[in-house]
C-alpha cells in the first residue's frame, strides 16, 4: 500500500481524508513507441532543452514513489520549447494499447517571454492492463501564455498525472482537464504564481461511475503581487463512485493584492456514492481576497420540474441539467472532434441515470 495525495496541511486522522491508500501495482516497464505527436511535430523534441525546468524541492507528486518512478525510469520524454514571441499549437495523442501498455512520461513545456503555447493532450486507449504515470513540468516566462487541454478517456486503469508549474510576471497558465475514464484517476497539480500579475485558471470536470476513484489535488501558491488564481471543479458521481477533492489556495506572505477563488460542485446521482471535499485556504498575507465554495447535492428539483413540464422524461431532464452544468467548460475545448467526443461520451455515461 502506498499513500497518495497527502494534504498540504493534515487534519483529524480518523476522517481518513488526509490521503488515500492504494494497492501497489506490479508494473513491468515496457517500451512506449506509439507515435504521439499529431500536430506540431517540429516543436516536440526528444532532446533535453538547454533550460531545464527545476521542480521545487517541496513538490512531492501524487506519491513519492510514483514521482520517483517517472524521474528514474520514464519511457516517454518530450520537450516542448517556445522561443520568444513564438506561437505553438500541439496535439499529443497519448494512447495506451496492447503494444504500448505502459506510459511513464516526463513532459516539459517551456514558454519563453511573449510566447504562446496551445497543447491538447488526449489520453486514450481501452487496453485493460495499461498504466499511465506522467509528470508534466511547465514554465511560463514573462508575458507568455500556456494553455493545456487534457482529456483522459482511458479504460479501467490507474492514471496518474503530477503537474508542476511556475508562472512568471504577467504570465498565464490555463488548464482544462476532462476526466472521463480510468478506474483510479489521480491528479496532483501544484501551480506556483511567482511573478507579479501572474495568472492561473484551472477548470476540471469529471464523471465517476462504477467503483471508480477520482482524486483531485490542486494547490495554487501565490508568491507574486497581484497574482490571480482560480479553479473550478465540477463533477457527477454515479453507482458507487468515489471522489476526493483537495483544493488549496496558499497565499504566501508578500503576495499582496492577490485574489483566488476555488469552487467545487458535485452532483450526486446514486445513494452509494462517496464524496470527500477538503477545500483549504491558507493565508500568511492579509492583503488578499481568498474565497472557496463547495456544494453537493442532487439535481435542482425546481429546474427538473420545469424541464419535465416541457414534456421531457425525468431521465432526459436530469441528463440535460448535468450536461448544462458542464457545457460552459466543455465549450472551451477548441478541437471540434475532441469536443464532440466528450459531449457524446457524457451523453452515453448519463444515459442510465
Amino acid at each position, binding site marked *: 500500500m502506498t499513500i497518495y495525495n497527502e494534504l498540504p496541511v493534515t487534519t483529524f486522522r480518523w476522517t481518513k481524508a488526509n490521503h488515500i491508500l492504494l494497492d501497489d501495482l506490479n508494473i513491468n516497464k515496457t517500451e512506449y513507441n506509439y507515435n504521439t505527436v499529431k500536430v506540431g511535430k517540429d516543436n516536440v523534441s526528444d532532446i533535453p532543452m538547454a533550460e531545464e525546468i527545476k521542480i521545487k524541492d517541496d513538490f512531492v507528486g501524487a506519491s513519492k514513489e510514483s514521482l520517483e518512478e517517472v524521474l528514474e525510469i520514464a519511457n516517454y520524454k518530450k520537450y516542448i520549447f517556445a522561443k520568444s514571441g513564438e506561437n505553438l499549437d500541439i496535439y499529443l495523442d497519448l494512447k495506451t494499447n496492447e503494444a504500448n501498455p505502459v506510459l511513464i512520461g516526463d513532459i516539459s513545456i517551456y514558454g519563453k517571454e511573449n510566447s504562446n503555447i496551445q497543447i491538447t493532450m488526449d489520453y486514450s486507449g481501452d487496453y485493460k492492463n495499461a498504466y499511465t504515470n506522467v509528470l508534466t513540468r511547465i514554465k511560463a516566462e514573462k508575458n507568455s501564455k500556456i494553455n493545456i487541454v487534457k482529456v483522459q478517456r482511458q479504460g479501467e486503469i490507474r492514471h496518474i498525472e503530477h503537474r508542476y508549474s511556475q508562472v512568471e510576471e504577467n504570465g498565464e497558465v490555463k488548464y482544462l482537464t476532462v476526466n472521463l475514464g480510468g478506474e483510479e484517476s489521480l491528479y496532483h497539480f501544484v501551480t506556483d504564481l511567482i511573478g507579479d500579475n501572474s495568472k492561473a485558471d484551472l477548470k476540471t470536470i469529471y464523471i465517476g461511475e462504477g467503483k471508480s476513484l477520482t482524486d483531485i489535488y490542486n494547490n495554487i501558491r501565490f508568491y507574486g503581487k497581484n497574482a490571480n488564481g482560480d479553479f473550478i471543479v465540477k463533477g457527477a458521481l454515479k453507482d458507487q463512485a468515489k471522489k476526493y477533492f483537495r483544493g488549496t489556495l496558499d497565499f504566501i506572505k508578500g503576495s499582496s493584492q492577490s485574489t483566488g477563488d476555488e469552487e467545487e460542485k458535485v452532483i450526486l446521482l446514486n*445513494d452509494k456514492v462517496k464524496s470527500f471535499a477538503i477545500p483549504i485556504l491558507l493565508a500568511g498575507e*492579509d492583503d488578499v481576497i481568498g474565497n472557496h465554495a463547495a456544494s453537493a447535492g442532487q439535481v435542482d428539483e425546481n429546474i427538473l420540474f420545469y424541464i419535465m413540464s416541457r414534456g421531457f422524461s425525468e431521465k432526459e431532464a436530469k441528463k440535460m441539467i448535468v450536461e448544462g452544468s458542464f457545457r460552459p467548460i466543455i465549450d472551451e475545448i477548441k478541437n471540434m472532434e475532441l469536443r464532440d467526443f466528450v459531449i457524446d461520451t457524457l451523453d452515453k455515461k448519463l444515459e442510465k441515470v
Partner: protein
Amino acid sequence: MAQIEKTQVENIDREIYDIKNEFTYDYKTNAGLTPEIIREISAQKNEPEWMLDFRLKSLEIYNKLDIPTWGADISELDMDNIVTYVKPKSGLNYSWDDVPDDIKNTFDSLGIVEADQKSLAGVGAQYDSEVVYHSIQENLIKKGVIYTDFETAVREHEDIIREYFMKLVPPTDHKFAALHGAVWSGGSFVYVPEGVHVDIPIQSYFRQNAPGTGQFEHTLIIVEKGASVHFIEGCSAPKYNVNNLHAGCVELHVKEDAYLRYSTIENWSKNMFNLNTKRALVDKNGTIEWVSGSFGSKVSYLYPMSILRGEGSKSEFTGITFAGEGQNLDTGTKVVMAAPNTSSNVNSKSISKSGGIATYRGLLKITPEARGAKATTNCESLMLDNESRSDTVPVIIIENDDVDIGHEATIGRISDETIFYLMSRGISEDEAKSMVVRGFAEPISKELPLEYSVEMNNLINLELKGTIG
C-alpha cells in the same frame, strides 16, 4: 511581595459550593504520571472503586497513545512533568504581585474590582453572582433539576454518572481525553428532568475559582425529553496560574425534543495549552446550539462536536476566535449527521493579528443513513496585518445522494474602501477599523448573555488598542 490574606474554603457557605471534602494535591512527585498519583487523587476525593479503576485504565491508554500529528505545535508541553499541572501550586500563597502585567492591565481595563483581583491569585473570594446563584438554585431544586459539582455528583448520583461518564468521549478518543480520564477534577453535573424548561442560564462561572479545578474539569449535562436549558461556561476573565495545560471534557446528552444551548467564552492566560474536548449527542428532534468565543491561551485545540443520532435533530454552531501575539488558536467544529432529515448550520469567524495564528478546522460527515441532510457552513477570516496567519481546513464527507450541502469560506483583510468611506465621514482610522471588527464579531456577541457580550466587546477593544494597522 505582599502576602494576601488567606480565605479558607471552610469559611465559605457550603450551600454555595456544595463542597464536602476539600482536598489539595500537596504531595510532590519527581516526574511523570504514575498509578500511585492517580490512587492518591482518587483517595482524596473519596471516590468509589469503579472510578479509581476507570482512572487507572485511562492512564494505561494515555501511555499508549501518541500526540496528534496535525494542528498547532504543542511540543513545548512537557508531558513528563504533567503531574505538576495536576498539582495546584498552593494557590493560597499566590500573590497578586506575581500575576503578569498584561493580565493585571486587562483586569484594570475591564474594571474588575480589587476584591476579584485577589481571587485571581487563587483565593476563593466570591463574585456578586452569589445571590443570583442562590435564587437559581432554589428555583431549580423545586423543578427537580440537579446542578452540582462533579465530585458530589459521583457520590450522590452514582448510578447516572456511572452510566454516562466518558461514554461520549471515551479515553481512547485521543491522548488528552485519556489524560482527562486519569486525572479529571472538578466540573459540573447538570440534569434537567423531562419537560422542564430552565429559563435563566445556568453558569459555571463560580466553580472556576475553586482551587484545583479548571484544569481537568468534567462537565456532564443531561437534558431529558422535551426539556430545555442554556448553560454558560465562563472563564470569563483570564485566570492566571502556573498550570499551563487545560484538558477539560464536556459531554452533553440532548434527548428527544430537548434543547440545549452551550455558551463559552474562553479567555485563558497566554501561557495555557487549551486542549479541550466537547461533544454532544442529540436524539430525535433535539437541538444543540454551540456559542463559542476563544480569546485566550497560547495554543488551543477546540472543536465542539455534534453527533446527530436522532431523526430531525439539529446542530447550530456560532463561534469566533481572536488570535493575537504569540497565540496559535486551532478551533472549529465537527458535525456527524447519522439519521434522516438532520440539519446543521455553522457560522465561524476568526481574527488574527500581531503574529497570531487562527485556524478553522472543521468536519462535516454525512452517513449513508442521513438521507435528507441539510448543512451550511460559513467561515470568515479577517487578518489585520501580514505578520499573522489565517488558515481554513474543512473536511466534508458525504455518503449518500439525498443531501443539500453548501460550504463557503473567505480570507482577507478589512477593505480599504470601507475604511476610506468611514474616514470620509470624520471617523479616525483606528476607530473605523475597530468599528469594522466589532461589526464582524457582532453576530457572535449578540448570541451571548449581556455581561459576556459586553466583556467580549471590551476584550476586542483591548486587543485592538494601538495595534491595529
